[in-house]
């Protein structure tokens, strides 16, 4: 297998006085979708934020395409080609959909062809193009957040629970978009609680517990082993 596009080696992160990540080891293979799973509060979001430099790793290495980025400022990390969809979506509510997208195109004006494609993947983006983003519904905001990360080709996407609380139709739309990204050759690290989405998209998978990755392997292995799921996450994903 080729070198991983991203690997975390013994990463420790504190939030205020709390020791949240306690030695995370994680690999994201190039060109694949890696699912990051685990119960609530085990540190999935903290892991993504540490990769982006929004929390600082106090120990360990975050290696992106051969370079340790753990100490780089957040904008420099983003400019290496990492698109981030945060758990809270990070929408600029006072800005229009268009302005949100314009900002996300960091290296220049929006590419018309790519925008056209994104608007066909996410039709509400076209309908509400001039609308203030704060007035969108939850599902529309989530589409905007994902589309914003996709407006330029990135090497790696960090996506935090994109389908949380959304209706099945929108979940299907988002899953379709992520599949399209995968076909484009991008690597994705995806936190996803919806097991059918996880199973359909994931190539590899890492399960966290208490600030560590406690199991890593093929998605198919985990999907096929109910007992393992129960042990790692305290519940069977097949119940979904």
């Amino acid at each position, binding site marked *: 297998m080729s070198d991983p596009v991203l690997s975390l080696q013994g990463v420790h992160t504190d939030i205020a006085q709390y020791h949240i990540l306690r030695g995370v080891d994680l690999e994201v293979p190039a060109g694949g979708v890696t699912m990051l799973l685990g119960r609530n509060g085990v540190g999935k979001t903290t892991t993504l934020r540490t990769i982006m430099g929004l929390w600082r790793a106090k120990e360990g290495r975050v290696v992106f395409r051969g370079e340790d980025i753990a100490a780089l400022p957040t904008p420099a990390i983003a400019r290496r080609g990492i698109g981030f969809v945060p758990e809270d979506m990070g929408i600029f509510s006072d*800005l229009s959909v268009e302005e949100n997208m314009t*900002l996300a195109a960091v290296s220049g004006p929006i590419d018309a062809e790519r925008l056209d494609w994104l608007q066909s993947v996410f039709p509400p983006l076209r309908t509400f193009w001039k609308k203030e983003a704060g007035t969108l519904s939850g599902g529309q905001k989530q589409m905007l957040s994902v589309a914003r990360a996709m407006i330029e080709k990135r090497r790696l996407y960090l996506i935090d629970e994109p389908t949380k609380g959304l209706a099945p139709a929108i979940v299907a739309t988002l899953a379709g978009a992520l599949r399209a990204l995968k076909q484009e050759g991008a690597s994705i690290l995806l936190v996803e609680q919806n097991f059918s989405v996880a199973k359909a998209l994931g190539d590899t998978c890492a399960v966290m517990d208490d600030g560590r990755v406690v199991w890593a392997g093929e998605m198919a292995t985990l999907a096929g082993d109910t007992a393992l799921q129960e042990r790692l996450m305290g519940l069977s994903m097949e119940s*979904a």
Partner: protein
Amino acid sequence: MTAAPDHAPTITGLSTWQRMQRHLPLLLVPLLVVVGYLAIPATSSWLTLTVSGLAMGMMIFIMASGLTLVFGLMDVINFGHGAFISVGAFVGVSILLALGSLTGAPSLALNIAAVLVAVAGAMAATAVMGWIFERVIVKPVYGAHLKQILVTMGGLIIVEQLILIVWGPDEIFFSRPEMLKGAITFAGAAIEKYRLLAVGFGLVLFLAMIWVLRSTKIGLIVRAGVQNGEMVEALGYRLRIVFVAVFIAGSALAGLGGVMWALYQEVITAHMGQEMMVLVFIVVIIGGLGSVEGCFIGALLVGLLQNYVGFIEPKVALISNIGLLVLILMWRPQGMLPVVKAK
């Protein structure tokens, strides 16, 4: 780990009425003007007061606009902002005094040229000063409000003392350039030319700022940064550089406001900036921290109220603005046009 059921609540958009309600404060300025008309017996006095209130409001807006963005972008409370107003005024007035042959000539073109040179000099001086102030005084205390208040107040005191050393302890009286003196009469009301000029200039500047904020990428970054600085960084923009640029621009604008205020009052003192800061802070707070539009409306309200009340009952002029602050915060605790903040 199930998909959301079909009946899952979706957060729907705001209704038209809710959206209109958000913009309700835009009506406050015309409303206050009408109230002033009803409260002031003579129409001519009302007209004079309205123009002078708007002029004063424009100048306060120019002084305050940078401060609101500085707060919005990085949560920095700068009590030293008044220093830029004073320094702008002293540098500008010194230049005007040196250009006596231009300001004394009965030619509008020469007079305006002198004012423009003074403004350019004052803005350049306060821009440089803003850059130094940011690096030396503000940067070491990012994220610590109490320290920011203490340290920036200390900076203000130092700058005021420096003004006393350079320009001496006395207030400096001067007069406006020849063609900017006097008044025109309109509908029986005497309206000072300079005030009209200040209103026009302030309006143009406000529109220019809005254009920059809405139509340029830098403007977009600033607006987005006020709402969610972290996300702006996660997209790849260095918020700190944007912040420093805004700080410098805001300082230069305060310097500009200082020159305009000096020309309005025809006298300058080292602590004039500090005195204006009371009104500037009121305006920034009632406008909604980080909102340039809110700051603009707030400034016009404060300017108008100060003039109307000063005419009707001079003794309560100053507390009328505190009253305005209280009323607006009771209505909208985040200010009139609050920026939707992440977190």
